[in-house]
């Protein structure tokens, strides 16, 4: 029974500890240049491609923005997450952290929410695009709301995947490359359907991130898509906790 409680405690995070880790990590994004670099890179790339084509297309929609952002995520999110656990392992601070009275799930969750929040903050200025376009012509709000929810969920999955990549190594470069590969794998899944046997297409499509994102970005918020994103996040975070616990094997 006591082992059962111990196992349970190990994975049951408390809000206080998670919040402490979250606050520290978010602050350290802003203390180092990471946060500003991410926000600037994000806004300039998106801003350029978005406004460049906006007047060519001559329609009041954010479609381009929602098509481009997932591509930027592929690079930016692994870059944000690569140091989260790898650096702690490299510098030995993981030993400090794990000998404090908190469980590994709190460490992983705190870092996850911090990176997720940073993405959300980087997305925030793009609301200006919406305001600009909405003032230029009539805009369909459904896909916009859906698009933002979809982007956040997609970012959540990518962050959790990136954290897992960071948990398996103590080298940030390797963490970045692995993170990019894993993220790219989920991104590409529903784009290779043409090359795979027919009985696999359904499964691959369902596993692909873009398929679910596209559903939500149409403005149709289906519980199946939400469950897909949340399950994948949960699973990757669980794997990260297990990977942290590897030191005990």
């Amino acid at each position, binding site marked *: 029974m*006591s*082992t059962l409680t*111990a196992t349970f*405690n190990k994975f049951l995070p408390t809000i*206080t*500890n998670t919040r*402490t880790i979250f606050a*520290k990590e978010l*602050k*350290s994004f802003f*203390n*180092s240049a990471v946060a500003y670099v991410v926000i600037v890179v994000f806004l300039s790339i998106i801003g350029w491609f978005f406004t460049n084509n906006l007047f060519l297309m001559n329609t009041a929609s954010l479609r381009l923005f929602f098509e481009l952002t997932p591509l930027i995520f592929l690079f930016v999110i692994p870059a944000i997450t690569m140091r989260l656990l790898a650096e702690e392992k490299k*510098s*030995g*601070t993981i*030993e*400090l*952290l*794990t*000998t*404090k*009275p*908190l*469980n590994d799930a709190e460490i992983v969750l705190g870092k996850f929410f911090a990176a997720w929040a940073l993405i959300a903050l980087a997305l925030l200025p793009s609301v200006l695009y919406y305001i600009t376009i909405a003032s230029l012509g009539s805009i369909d709000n459904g896909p916009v709301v859906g698009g933002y929810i979809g982007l956040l969920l997609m970012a959540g999955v990518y962050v959790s995947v990136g954290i897992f990549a960071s948990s398996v190594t103590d080298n940030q470069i390797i963490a970045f490359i692995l993170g990019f590969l894993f993220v790219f794998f989920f991104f590409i899944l529903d784009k290779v359907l043409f090359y795979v046997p027919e009985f696999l297409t359904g499964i691959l499509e369902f596993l692909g991130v873009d398929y679910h994102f596209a559903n939500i970005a149409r403005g149709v918020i289906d519980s199946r898509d939400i469950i897909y994103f949340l399950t994948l996040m949960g699973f990757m975070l669980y794997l990260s906790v297990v990977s942290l616990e590897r*030191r*005990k094997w």
Partner: protein
Amino acid sequence: MSITVNNLTKYYGSEKAVNDISFSVHKGEILGFLGPNGAGKTTTMKIITCYLPPSSGSVEVDGLSVEKESLRVRRKIGYLPELNPLYLDMNVVDYLEYCARLHNIQNTTMKSRLREMIDVCGLTTVRHKDIGELSKGYKQRVGLAQAMIHDPEVLILDEPTSGLDPNQIVEIRNLIRRLGKAKTVILSTHILSEVQATCDRVVIINEGSIVANGTPEELQQQFQGTTKYAVEVKAAVNDPMSDIFPKLKAIEHIDTVMYEGQEGANYRFTLQSTRGIDVREQIFRQSVAENWVLMELSKQTISLEDVFRKLTQAQNN
């Protein structure tokens, strides 16, 4: 608040890092954990602080198992890991506050607690600096402050003075001595004078096994075994082996006599007596009786360093 280690064994893969060790530390005691590099000191400390699980055996802190009650054990322990890892991009106050929050120190007491630790550890002048900018001595103090921020009952310090200059070493030692009075402290080191200066008790560990356990004085006595004397006499004799040797040997309590050599009319010997008995007076009287001139008579004591070398080299070779 005691720590009990029972038959602790730890394997890394197939390599045995710690081999069936048992010891205990009582409240208010400072235990010195001594051993050459790679002896298993750090591994043992990592197990006590719940960083690694034991392969077999048990560790209890205040009666709580490190495996089953890990969170409760960690609340009681302050830990300074080997090499003192720190977040170099945080400033001192922020870092200590972060550690304090992880120990659930409430907002109401946070300020006073931080001020106290900064005060005690002498960090006032650098409190707003980034840790990465600090000198090694200051970093070490930050590490100690971090370990003690929640006023833990148990302190585990892995080589707290490594890499410091002699002045800083004395400072850190005094700090540990002062703070250790009301706490249970385990501190590891391979510097022997450190043990003599700070510790109440010593555990010497070599190749994963405990080879000695006791107060520094006890260990010295235990390994003294016999007492040695260096004797040099000036005598008009033909053959030291037949004229001096047997007469020294005849002195009561002298077990062995070794002839070391000759310089002119001076003959040198090393004598060994039974432990705890001082035979210098008898040697003097014998010399007078035989009409030798006593040029040198000294008692040689064994240092903790000798004990350490004896214990850890015998097995290595």
